[in-house]
């Protein structure tokens, strides 16, 4: 059980393809970070990344004062006191890593996000792909299978493209068909992969147009580690991207920072919770009530769904 006097906070980004965990001490120093790949919205993945991070830090769950979750499976984690969306957490994490950031591009496994950040470091606008997976990590995974190249080798191989080819940037399924057609025409894998990464950049540019181009631009998420994706994005934007050393953990870091707020600035955190509490109480017994389960009589938690 977590204790409010414990010395650490945890942020968990329960993503669609990977789970990331970051642990901070009370001074905001990162003491551990872990990434686990366990398939789609995998509870095992989240558990593995949390266990690994705890092990790295040399602590146990009892040493965690607050935990905040984010990502696709954010509401599935019992350990989390609270959850925020990945938009809010990636922006928070990215601004922490690059304090003057004004635009955050996050390309994750399931979705792509472009987030505009104001001078106070708060999200002012965002755009996100809806149902279409084009331009996401899934898009790259599907095309890696089509060209039979390991995912991590795709970027470097695409950087050696010579011939300029073009594929659809509108639909992952159509793009896969086009890739197969290009290979059947005898085109080199390197050149086909160059076109694939150019398509991702083109798709992301569409999202950027919805919130407005501004700089500096920070890129987070797993695709930020792909050299060809970064190269093509820089080409279409006409500017350099800032890539944090470990771009995949930005969301988990943001979540951990929110957890840290809760123990270092409880006034601000409480202010937001009061809004949530009143609203949740007013809904009890109505169709929109989000109460999940009754609490044991001796438990008086401060945050999250346990309010009920």
């Amino acid at each position, binding site marked *: 059980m977590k204790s409010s006097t414990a010395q650490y906070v945890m942020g968990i980004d329960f993503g669609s393809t990977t789970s990331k965990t970051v642990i901070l001490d009370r001074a905001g120093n990162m003491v551990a970070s872990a990434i686990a790949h366990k398939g789609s919205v995998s509870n095992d993945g989240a558990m593995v990344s949390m266990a690994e991070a705890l092990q790295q830090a040399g602590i146990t769950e009892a040493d965690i004062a607050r935990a905040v979750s984010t990502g*696709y499976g954010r509401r599935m984690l019992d350990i989390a006191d609270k959850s*925020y*969306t*990945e*938009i*809010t957490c990636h922006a928070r994490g990215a601004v922490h890593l690059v304090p003057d950031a004004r635009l955050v591009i996050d390309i994750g496994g*399931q*979705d792509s996000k472009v987030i505009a950040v104001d001078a*106070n470091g*708060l*999200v*002012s*606008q*965002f755009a*996100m792909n*809806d*149902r279409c997976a084009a331009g996401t990590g899934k898009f790259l995974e599907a095309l890696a299978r089509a060209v039979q190249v390991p995912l991590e080798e795709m970027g470097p191989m695409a950087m050696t493209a010579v011939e300029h080819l073009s594929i659809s940037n509108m639909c992952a399924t159509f793009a896969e068909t086009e890739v197969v057609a290009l290979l059947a025409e005898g085109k080199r894998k390197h050149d086909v992969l160059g076109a694939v990464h150019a398509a991702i950049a083109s798709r992301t540019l569409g999202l950027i147009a919805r919130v407005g181009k501004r700089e500096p631009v920070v890129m987070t998420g797993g695709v930020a580690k792909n050299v060809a994706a970064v190269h093509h994005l820089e080409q279409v934007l006409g500017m350099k991207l800032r890539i944090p050393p470990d771009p995949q953990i930005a969301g988990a870091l943001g979540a951990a920072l929110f957890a840290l707020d809760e123990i270092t600035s409880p006034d*601000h955190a409480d*202010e*937001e919770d*009061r*809004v*949530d*509490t*009143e*609203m949740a*109480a*007013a*809904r009890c017994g*109505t*169709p*929109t009530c*989000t109460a999940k389960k009754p609490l044991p009589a001796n438990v008086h938690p401060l945050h999250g769904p346990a309010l009920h």
Partner: protein
Amino acid sequence: MSRDAIFSAFEHAAEQPLESARAWKQAHGTPVVGSFPMHFPGELAHAAGCLPVILQESQEPITVGHGMIYPFYCGYTRSVVDQACKGDYDFLDAIMFGDHCVQVLGAADVVRAKLPNTRVHFYQLISSMSDPWSLGRARETFLLLREGLEEMIGHPIADDAIHASIQLFNQNRALLRRLYDLRRAGTANITAKQMQLAVKSSMVMDKASHNALLQQLLDELESSSDRQQRGVRVYLSGHFCQAPKLGVLDLIEDCGGIVVDDDLYHGTRYISTDVSEQGDPISALAEWYLARNLKVPCPTRVDQNADWENYLLKAMENSNAQGMIVLMAKFCEPHMYYYPEIKEAFERHNMPHLLIETEHELTALEGLRTRIESFLEVVKRQANAQARRVAA
């Protein structure tokens, strides 16, 4: 009846509109006239002794209709065509179609072809609303509608009957507006779903029965005061024809939004304007047609005196809303034309808004949840930061 029982009655009619209308016809022997949404004056059909029913988008998957209409038409038109192809409209005695957009025109053609034995009356209302001849042209169209209905029932419709129907419909609009007033003021916690059910059921139920239920509901709500809700106050805009999916409305509230007002067709757009109960009823209906576009501007009409984005900004202020969620039916051309102006105006006024494109086939809501939650987090955090700056 209790509040819950009344909303259940609304839900039954709203969610099964054709079954509900068929049952009414069987019980009362009343002819049923189906119409497209937007501008059809149900008062005329009611005065003709018919039950006017605004045809709704069905929740059923579109199957046989796919072969009759393009996939890039909006969900409403595709669903209407699908329902016609499946024989769902066979019990209707007549259908009144207006030409509100290209897609509706296409749907009307298919329905007419698929229902050769059903009386289909097509009317074309003037879309230029502020010209010197606009009123006269609107009156001519409504006269033709009246004649079409008279031909169907085989006798003239008396002016007195139209006046009585106008009065009944005005009462219905006024009762629904009172419901909106209670929600806006925060004295009655009416969910977005409940509000839609109240308005949508009005479009398909017998008006006198609906008025009786509304009156009971208001008596109960006005005699008590619900606990004030806390959360992000949200204004909903868009959806001029079909009702937004209830799952989307529930999701907005589940994420922490409180819907306080809207300009939806299944909302204030439908009930905004009353018809004069004096003088020539057809002229009164023509005046209503022009006036309601000034009350809640419609992007399918052209009016020099109407400005949708300014209307929305003002409406947000009046309802003390903190953010607007725009619900745009996918492929709705009139909405797509106007949206850039709304976006620009809202950004200029630093007013948060979120665009959600909706589809008939919308089933997976998880991605949508992230966008809505993020939007509400943005509104909340920006508002809190502003409050702290002011306090400092």
